[in-house]
Structures are given as C-alpha cells and as structure tokens.
C-alpha cells in the first residue's frame, strides 16, 4: 500500500510534467518557425552577397545552400526608385534587396558567373545564376540563326570546371530525338564549334525534361509557336527583333543577346498569377540595364563636354568627341518599349561604339597606364 505522500508526489509530478511539456511543445513550434524563416532570409542574403562578390571579382562560384528549403518561387522584382527585391511567393520571408544586376533562375544548386555587354564607351557587367540546365536548339540552318544562337551561347556560363557541381549544357533537337555530345549535353566550346556547320532539322517534338529549355530561332515566329520555350525572330539591320514565349500572348522586343538569355532561361513556366518566368527575367534585366545605361550615357556625355571645353577645335580628337556626345545625348530619358524606339536606341548605341573606337585608335581615349 502506497503512502499518501507518495501518491501526492506522483499526481503532482504528472500535472507539472504535462504542463511543462505543453508549453515546451508550443514554444518549440513557434521557435522552429521563427528560426526557419530566419534561416531562409539568411540564405537569401548570403546568396545576394555571393552574387555581388562574383559581380565585383568576376570569379565564378557555386551556391549550394538552396537545397535546405524550397526557393523555387523566388524571383527578383524591379521596384520604382529603390533597389530591386528578391521575393519568394507564398512564404513568410521578408523581401531581400539586391543591388547587383543579376539574372537569377532558382534551383537547388546554382552556378554564379559574371558576363558583360561591351558598348565601347561603357561596359555593362552583370551576374547570372542558374541551376543545371540544358539549352536545346532546333536549328533552321540559316546564317542569321547561327549568329543569334552564337551570341546567346557566348553569354551563357562555361561550367566545365572540375569543381563545379552545376552543369549547364546544350543539345540539339531533331524531330523526336535529342542529340548530345557523346552521352552528355554539349559544353559551350562543343556547341560553338557545332553551330557553324549544323544544318536544318525537323521541328522539335521530343519530350523535354523540366531542366531543358527549348530555344527556337526562326523567321516565322509570329505565325507558329514551338511546343515549349521561346521563339526568337531574326534581327533587323539595327540588331533588333521580336521574341515570343510559348503560352504567353505577348510579343517581346529584343535588342541584345542578354534579352534572349533572360527569355530563354526563364522559359514558359508560369507562376500562380499566369506570368512566365521568362517575362520576369526580361523585366529585371531591362530595368537594371536601362537605369544604368541612361546614367552612364549622361555622365559620359557631360564628361566629353568637359574635355571639349579644354581642347581646341583643331585637335584631331575634337570631331569624334562631338559626334560621340551627339549620339550619347540621344539615349537617356526614354522608356524603351516598342520596336521603333529600340531601333532608335540601337542606332545610337552602334554609332557611339564606332565613334569611341575611332577615338581609341587615334589615341584620344587610350590611357598608357598600367601597374
């Protein structure tokens, strides 16, 4: 027979234990959720910092921390008058500001590299981050198509380094079959050597995995759409053309290969609002580029005015400087959205590049410094 005080001890012990356990479980649940959101925000911030480091140094790297949670809904959204923000839909994570021009497509592990667009008088550097992807081409065989695809491939990172766990490759689609290089997707060097000699193939009907992006370059994009991915129209004499994303009724105007990389990388995958990933990448790419291009053009044209003030009209550099400043002052302050505006922009940019090259050749803009 138990003593009364033993019974009391047992009952009191049970009541206290249950109470403590109840509060511990409730608190742990909240703490876990807070910590999870905190961890996700830290991972996004770490990614933004890593992308900035690649942008500043040009040294490519892998970022592998995305595997811990689901970041598939994350994308970078431009803002008016403040920094673009990394947003993840349907999660409790606060938006993370991104001050690096960045083309980002999510995945469990991404390869971050730096690319650039050279305008002559200015260079636009950007970072791009993408997971293991295979870009699939469906050749028409024409020279214009080869030039467009070459310009796209040159902006896609080369991931053949042994240290990289992320592999970006290329393949060719011919009807229902896909051709790789051996049993692996082709590397950047391989596809560049193949492009120059490839011939027309039948329209692609092969079944493509989620990690494959079909890129079709065709003169008849407006009248037909491929089974998935993007259809890129041939450029006009100014280097401007139209592009379409499968499943989206919109027409996109492209003026440089980075527009095509953004549309191709994003592709036709839609979010819950029906917006394609290709369109989101296209928007952030142009928002970042146009803001910088406009400011760079204004700074450069004012710089040239300062120089012109200090040199005489007889100076051999004078005329080229005047021509260059005329072209640059035609660039800023406009909202480029349609084909004719883009034609005008590319005209100014192409002419400005040519004038700057003549200044370099004449020694007016080439510094002899180096350390």
């Amino acid at each position, binding site marked *: 027979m138990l003593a009364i005080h033993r019974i009391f001890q047992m009952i009191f012990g049970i009541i206290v234990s249950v109470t403590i356990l109840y509060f511990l479980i409730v608190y742990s649940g909240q703490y876990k959720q807070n910590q999870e959101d*905190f961890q996700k925000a830290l991972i996004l911030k770490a990614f933004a910092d890593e992308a900035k480091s690649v942008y*500043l140094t040009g040294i490519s790297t892998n970022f592998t921390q995305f595997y811990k949670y689901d970041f598939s809904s994350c994308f970078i959204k431009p803002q008016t008058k403040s920094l673009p923000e990394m947003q993840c839909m349907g999660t409790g994570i606060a938006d993370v500001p991104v001050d690096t021009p960045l083309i980002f497509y999510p995945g469990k592990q991404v390869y971050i590299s730096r690319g650039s667009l050279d305008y002559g008088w200015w260079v636009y550097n950007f970072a791009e981050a993408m997971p293991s992807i295979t870009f699939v081409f469906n050749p028409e065989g024409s020279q214009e198509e080869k030039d467009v695809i070459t310009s796209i491939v040159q902006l896609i990172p080369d991931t053949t380094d042994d240290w990289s766990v992320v592999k970006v490759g290329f393949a060719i689609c011919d009807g229902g079959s896909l051709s790789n290089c051996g049993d692996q997707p082709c590397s950047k060097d391989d596809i560049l050597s193949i492009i120059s000699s490839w011939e027309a193939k039948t329209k692609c009907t092969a079944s493509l995995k989620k990690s494959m992006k079909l890129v079709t370059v065709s003169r008849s994009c407006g009248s037909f759409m491929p089974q998935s991915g993007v259809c890129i129209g041939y450029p006009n004499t100014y280097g401007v053309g139209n592009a379409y994303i499968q499943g989206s009724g919109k027409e996109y105007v492209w003026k440089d290969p980075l527009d095509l990389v953004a549309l191709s990388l994003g592709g036709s995958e839609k979010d819950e609002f029906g917006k394609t990933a290709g369109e989101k990448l296209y928007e952030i790419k142009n928002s970042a580029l146009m803001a910088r291009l406009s*400011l760079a053009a204004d700074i450069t044209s004012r710089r040239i005015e300062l120089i012109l003030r200090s040199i005489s009209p007889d100076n051999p550099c004078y005329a080229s400087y005047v021509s260059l400043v005329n072209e640059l002052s035609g660039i800023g302050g406009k909202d480029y959205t349609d084909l004719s505006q883009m034609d005008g922009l590319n005209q100014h940019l192409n002419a400005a590049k040519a004038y700057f090259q003549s200044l370099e050749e004449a020694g007016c803009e080439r510094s002899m410094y180096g350390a």
Partner: protein
Amino acid sequence: MERNPARKGQSEIMEYIVMVVLIVAAIIAIILFLSWWSIMQIEMQGSKNQNDKIVSLGQMIMGDYMLINEQAMLDDAKLTSLVSMSSEGCERLQALLGANWYAKIKSLDMEGDIPCTWGNYPDCNSWTICEYKEPHIAQVFPVNVYRKLSDKAALAVLEVGVYT
C-alpha cells in the same frame, strides 16, 4: 526515538516541490535566454550589415565603369560630371546602389580641399557624391584618381559613409 512518519512524508514532499520549482525556473530561464539570443543575433547582424554595406559600396564605386576608366582608376572628368548633376546624380545612383550613404573622394596631388564643380574643373581635387550628413559611420579606401586632361594618376582617398 523513531522519526514521525508524517513529518518524514512532509519533508519529502517539500524537497520534491522545491526541486520541481527549480527545474521549472531553469526551463523558463532557457526559454528567455533563447529569445534574447535570437534578438541579439539580429542586432549583431544589423551592425555587421552596416560595415558590410560600407565595404561593398566602396567596392561598387571603385569597380563601376560609370566612374572608372579601363585601368580601374576613378576618372576625374566622370566624377565631376556626376557631382555637377547635383541631387539628380545622387538619386539616380542611390536607386542603383541603395540609399542612405555618401562618398567623398579627395585627390592628394593638390593642397587643400577644393570641391570640383562644372566651372573650376580641372583645378580642383575633391568630389562629394550625395549629402554628407551626421550621424554616420565611415571607412576610407586608398584609390587612384586619373586626371584625364594631364594624363596622370594621383593617389587619392575614397571615404564611404552610411547614415546611422
């Protein structure tokens, strides 16, 4: 003399209750500590973020082709162009690099501190991008300023500050 069993029971209960109270107090202390630790982590992250922001702004300014030449030196004509755009230049740059900072570049090839304007270029040696305001924390970086008209490189100091 034998101990009274009732008293023995009472003292055991008291010991038991005191022990339970101490354990509960320890658990509550752990919970409070974890909450305080989370808050402190966030505050430390904030302070680290400010210093990181200064370093990354410094790197962005030293690496952006809007302000540097092909030898990665700050170009004095580009700096003068930017500061001569007054607050518009600052606003446009802050839309790209973030808000609440300033940068001051001073070239050491001239005595004194002569702010560059559209009118006195190139006979000047300092450029202030965005408003210098208190309170702030700042760091300095050694840089070169390339004097476009004389084709010479000067040693300079770049000071980057963020408002606190």
